[in-house]
């Protein structure tokens, strides 16, 4: 189970990560193509977070290589990964409740305009652009609304619009549907499909089988730091994946 399939966009080869005596990941090889939505599943402690953190630039692998569009990369911090097109949508969305939707989308990347000698925030410009991003995602989020008044689905739209703004190549989403209502889950999955339509690749960490099977093209299962399955969703089943996660099944063909 060491070869990566495809991987024209992102490729990890034989990635291992150790924290002192703890071996978090062992010989993981993963390939992601453009426009693929990949589900990353596994029990707690299987290494999903570690793998995502390596992709996002939080950690450097102890061993192995990381390629973006066939170029080898090595990130010292998440900012470097971001500038190479890797964006993360955190479980708590990392939004500032006291700011507007537009402000959150542009946080750290504000549009400025000139007024005399000063460069000031271009509120109108950012609202217009954010509104366009929300419309593209077919979300009814309004750019000038404060985030603390928004539903879970709208907040997800804001977090995802940030990645669109960054023209991310790969978007890593950590349990995006974990703590929201059923209706909002549908909204979020629709947003993810919209991202795919627009050519982004998505890695979705999720514990929710139905979400992975309806939204993802492929599913990767980790168990105790090793990859035990990497196959199209169409040629697997929830029962098989459950077995792979728990260890009832050793390897997925």
């Amino acid at each position: 189970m060491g070869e990566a399939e495809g991987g024209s966009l992102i490729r990890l080869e034989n990635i291992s990560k150790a924290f002192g005596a703890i071996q978090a990941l062992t010989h993981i090889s993963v390939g992601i193509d453009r426009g693929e939505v990949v589900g990353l599943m596994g029990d707690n402690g299987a290494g999903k977070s570690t793998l995502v953190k390596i992709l996002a630039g939080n950690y450097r692998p102890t061993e192995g290589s990381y390629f973006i569009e066939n170029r080898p990369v090595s990130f010292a911090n998440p900012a470097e990964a971001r500038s190479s097109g890797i964006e993360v949508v955190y479980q708590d969305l990392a939004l500032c409740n006291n700011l507007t939707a537009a402000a959150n989308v542009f946080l750290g990347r504000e549009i400025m305009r000139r007024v005399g000698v000063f460069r000031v925030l271009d509120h109108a410009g950012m609202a217009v652009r954010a509104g366009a991003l929300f419309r593209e995602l077919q979300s009814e989020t309004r750019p000038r609304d404060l985030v603390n008044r928004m539903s879970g689905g709208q907040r997800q739209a804001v977090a995802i619009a940030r990645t669109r703004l960054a023209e991310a190549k790969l978007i890593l989403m950590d349990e995006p549907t974990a703590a929201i209502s059923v209706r909002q889950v549908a909204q979020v999955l629709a947003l993810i499909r919209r991202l795919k339509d627009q050519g982004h690749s998505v890695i979705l960490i999720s514990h929710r089988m139905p979400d992975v099977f309806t939204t993802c093209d492929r599913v990767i299962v980790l168990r105790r730091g090793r990859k035990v399955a990497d196959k199209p969703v169409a040629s697997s089943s929830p029962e098989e994946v459950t077995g792979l996660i728990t260890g009832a099944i050793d390897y997925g063909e």
Partner: protein
Amino acid sequence: MTSDKIIHAATASLGDVPERTPVGIARRIASRQEFWITLAVFAMGLIVSIITPHFATYTNLSNVLQNFCYIGILAIGMTPILITGGIDISVGAIMGLCGVALGLLLQADWPLWAGLPATLLLGVALGAINGGFIAYLRLPPFLVTLGMLSVARSMALIVSSGRVVYSFGQSEKAIFALGGGKTFGVPNVVYAMIASALVLHFLLTMTRWGRYVSAIGGNQRAARLTGIPVRPIKVSVYMFGGLMAAITSVFLVGWLGSVTNALGQGDELRVIAGTVIGGASLAGGYGTAYGAVIGSLLIEELRNALLLAGVNPFWQGTFIGGFIILAIILQKIQVTEEED
């Protein structure tokens, strides 16, 4: 197709009613604490002028105007600190130490054009020390500034040897004119306060710095994750507060005509009261320049009203404390309404 329908049905809400109608704008203004405090300032003024004829006189009103400016400028300096979720209870002590330093420099015959920048620099430096401990060592703001409060007060005693400074060398006329003088009939400190308020308003609403200050107060982790330089910005808000304290000290020294080392003692509570009453949240994430000004004005108006009404001055603390609690309750009600 089906999923699109779900989105539309799910997000239809009262909030979809356009906000740009007059009713919508009025509702937004009415939901702001600053609006209610402004009303309170006028209401109180009206009530007090009915009770006593001495309130609405030119002398009295210009006294109120002048007095509130000192707390107002300090409150303007406190506002960005509060927005980031911090606090600075040493602001009165910093002001006192700056005043003492200015007095001593001028007494040693420094020219004003050298003494002023030195004082401002001192305020900024003290703020930077606060900010450094808070942002880089990640110590709690309350405790760090509590320490600074103690140290600054003691420093003021040390450098002044416990004595009053009342002669200011070659710059005496200049400092009195600056701090106690009027331009076009308005006390100079009022111009300083208005200028500070405008500068803060611009910084908070039109610059990246202001947005980052709000972001840090709203979700510091999120701010860090988006690449915002959280620590330098946190230091800068305390430096801003220190600068405002130094500016206040310049005008206060010029107006009082002498400096005791007790300058500013106890002011920190009035400053915090002014900012909170004006709508700033102690939990961080919200605060405005206008709020700092109007909250400070309300407190000073209250003190003046109590004095004119013949209320025993010892009661002032009770009234001010009552207003603070009222303002916090008002804030809490608003927050609860929003959460619904």
